């Protein structure tokens, strides 16, 4: 009935051993939290290491007793069972000691938490909005806003071509931030709950529709930092990465200036009359934002996302089509795009939908038509 004793103890100890490699020093190997680049990140990492060490020590101490007992107090060795069944003193001791350890953990945790929650006196404020399935960034003091989409090609995801180094962690436009500056994020969402996370900045906060959460960071080192959405937000939850491009304050100022010019150029383009070909070309590009649901060929997903090909809306009156795209449909995954796309972009994508995938409404929607509906 019994296993050989060496086999048993070896195997049971084997279960505990995997804990041992979890030593703080191995952070570079992807076994621990990644090396942080913000002060709060540093604090959290040392808090994490401290607590993990305490847990490890408790684990080793408690189970040394148990494994010793398993080794020594066994029937096969002829050990006779003692019959004691309690010891009030011991029981008090091992309730009080953990309590004291917990207080010791709570003190530094409280201090860090208080600093984390202090979003006052920030120099730059960025509003982050989660959408199914992309992020939108708005620099509130500078009038710059753009969407940030996954840029990994479908071919890599579907294993038709080799995967790149930053597979699934790359975007078309990263969030550019200055280093050595206190940055405050205002995080919200448009449709469902998302969560914006960059491990190296130690920032994770939920974006909740109708509410605005605040959090801050201070990046100490220029570089590219990658993260992901961490709150299940539907089909492409795994495909909405976060990329932060941290630049020195001077480079950041230069970037701001360049982008303001671009925004002005866009505004004047919106005043112009667009040709059908230009609208279709631009629309095809913008349609990438719709393809996650409506399919690359406008085929949709049966019973979940309607097809655009042959859709009554996309082939019917243009006003109705614009209405759906601009204001979305409440209570469904079809979001209001008027806040995320410019007049030109909406005009282009609607034109594209009406004249692709076999649809042939034949009409071109102009930016001015969209503007009139705002």
């Amino acid at each position, binding site marked *: 009935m019994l296993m050989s004793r060496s086999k048993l103890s070896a195997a049971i100890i084997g*279960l505990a051993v995997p804990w041992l490699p979890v030593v703080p020093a191995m952070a570079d190997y992807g076994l621990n939290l990644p090396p942080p680049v913000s002060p709060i990140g540093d604090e959290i990492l040392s808090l994490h290491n401290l*607590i993990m060490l305490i847990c490890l020590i*408790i684990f080793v101490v408690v189970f040394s007793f*148990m494994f010793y*007992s398993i080794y020594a107090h066994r029937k096969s060795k002829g050990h006779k069972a003692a019959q004691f069944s309690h010891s009030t003193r011991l029981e008090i001791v091992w309730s009080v000691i953990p309590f004291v350890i*917990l207080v010791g953990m709570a003190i530094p*945790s409280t201090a860090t938490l208080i600093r984390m929650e202090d979003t006052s006196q920030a120099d730059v404020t960025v509003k982050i909005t989660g959408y199914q399935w992309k992020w939108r960034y708005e620099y509130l003091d500078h009038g710059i806003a753009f969407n940030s989409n996954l840029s990994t090609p479908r071919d890599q995801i579907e294993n038709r071509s080799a*995967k790149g180094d930053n*597979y699934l962690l790359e975007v078309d436009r990263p969030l550019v931030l200055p280093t050595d500056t206190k940055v405050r994020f205002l995080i919200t969402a448009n449709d469902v709950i998302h969560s914006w996370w960059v491990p190296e900045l130690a920032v994770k906060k939920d974006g909740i529709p109708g509410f605005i959460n605040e959090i801050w960071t201070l990046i100490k080192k220029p570089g590219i930092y990658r993260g992901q959405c961490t709150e299940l937000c539907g089909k492409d939850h795994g495909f909405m990465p976060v990329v932060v491009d941290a630049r020195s304050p001077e480079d950041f100022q230069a970037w701001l200036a360049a982008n303001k010019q671009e925004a002005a150029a866009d505004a004047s383009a919106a005043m112009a009359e667009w040709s059908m070909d230009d609208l279709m070309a631009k629309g095809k590009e913008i349609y990438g934002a719709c393809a996650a649901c409506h399919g690359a060929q406008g085929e949709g997903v049966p019973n979940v996302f309607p097809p655009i090909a042959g859709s009554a809306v996309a082939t019917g009156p243009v006003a109705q089509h614009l209405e759906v795209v601009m204001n979305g449909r409440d209570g469904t995954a079809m979001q209001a795009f008027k806040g995320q796309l410019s007049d030109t972009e909406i005009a282009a994508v609607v034109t594209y939908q009406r004249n692709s995938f076999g649809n042939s409404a034949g009409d071109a929607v102009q930016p001015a038509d969209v503007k009139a509906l705002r």
Partner: protein
Amino acid sequence: MATAEAAHHEEHHHPSGIMRWITTTNHKDIGTLYLSFSLMMFMVGGAMALVIRAELFQPGLQIVDPHFFNQMTTMHALVMIFGAIMPGFVGFANWMIPMMIGAPDMALPRLNNWSFWILPFAFTMLLGSLFAPGGGPASGWTLYAPLSIQGGMSVDMTILAVHMMGISSVLGAINIVVTVFNMRAPGMTLMKMPLFVWTWLITAYLLIAVMPVLAGAVTMLLTDRHFGTAFFDPAGGGDPVMFQHIFWFFGHPEVYVMILPAFGIISEIIPTFARKPLFGYASMVLAVAGIAFLSFIVWAHHMFTVGMPLIGELFFMYATMLIAVPTGVKVFNWVATMWRGSMTFETPMLFAISVVVLFTIGGLSGLMLAITPADFQYHDTYFVVAHFHYVLFSGAAMAMMGGAYYWLPKWTGHMYDEKLGKLHFWLTAIFFNITFFPQHFLGLAGMPRRIPDYALQFTEFNVMSSIGAFGLGFSQLLLVYVVVKCVRGGEKASAEVWDNPKGLEWTVPSPAPYHTFETPPQVR
């Protein structure tokens, strides 16, 4: 009681064949039904887990599309929690509580029949939702609004199924409370009850308190979906976070619903094989009660990232950390029970020891998760997935396996195959760790949970985890084989089965007769 009457009882005209099982009010039959149902669901939920792990074996999308992947994570959790673990423990309660307290049956036998037979309907509804237009529920088992509001008809089917499961659980729990308070044999005072009975009594109260809360939450979802309310819709003045508060007010006690009976089983097994009384019985009872109380005031630690006020975060951090104290007491008491015993290591004991060790790993990672600032890094990553599988698989599920080996001889009258039992234990324990230990590293390195595809630096640990999962899954076929083999025959088990175990269940013959303790035993 006159023997003639007892004999008459034996011959009660119960129908045979399938009708016996449908109409039965016998606690042992119903226990068997619950346990078989649980084993079946364990296999169904396990198959879903293997779909998940197969997809995650390599980066890229290979086997399923992301929408179906989400249905699998959602269903795996719902099936395992509501189909495998909870009914499994109710099965143990049905079989063992009357025998442990010297009662002839549960107090409300007809209700008992009902509680069980609701379940097959609930799960037909739940599993059937996978075939609804647009597929099954895909918003995670937590059904967070507004994502669940977007879902199709399957969400409504899930809501209905949850209502049915809730009714089943509450009825079962009421039955247990009534049984424990009214049916104890003379002399069986509360503080003489086996710890398993104590843990279930407290669990039953938790169920009665929180299942209606879940019912409320999903009903609000339903009315938001179809009847124009806006509880969780900010556009109508509602608040999506309120759903999370209500859900976790149910959800956290639910975690203890799934672990307290496991503590009870472990506390029965260890003394038997250490040949020594349970250490600190009174403090064990107190610890369970303490954990149950604390479980009501820690729910928001599941949602530290939603943006609570500082004071709220601090409160929930401190309260959560406190749970470590009674939990520690339990672990220390188990170790002290083994200390200077005369131990042998049959399969139930192997499971019990590994539950103590592995559950403690889950408990310690739980303590790490309680530290709010650090939780901002761990939250919704694979670190959490690892944590709750250490608690729920190597805590709850493995305790049930240990309990099954422990009482199988009593249930069937045959000894199970000890060699195969041990093999099953080692395969389970080893593959479990291969599956879930690497997930700690994945989480720390930055892999979010509930994603169907991942960045390349997470590949190695995912490969390992998937290999472990397939090993773990297929090892469970061995459990089914051992159980079936034991039911069909084997070495005859004595009444005591083990070496002088304590408890009334060992005073009746093996297999336990259809009716036991029709004359109450006298407890000294």
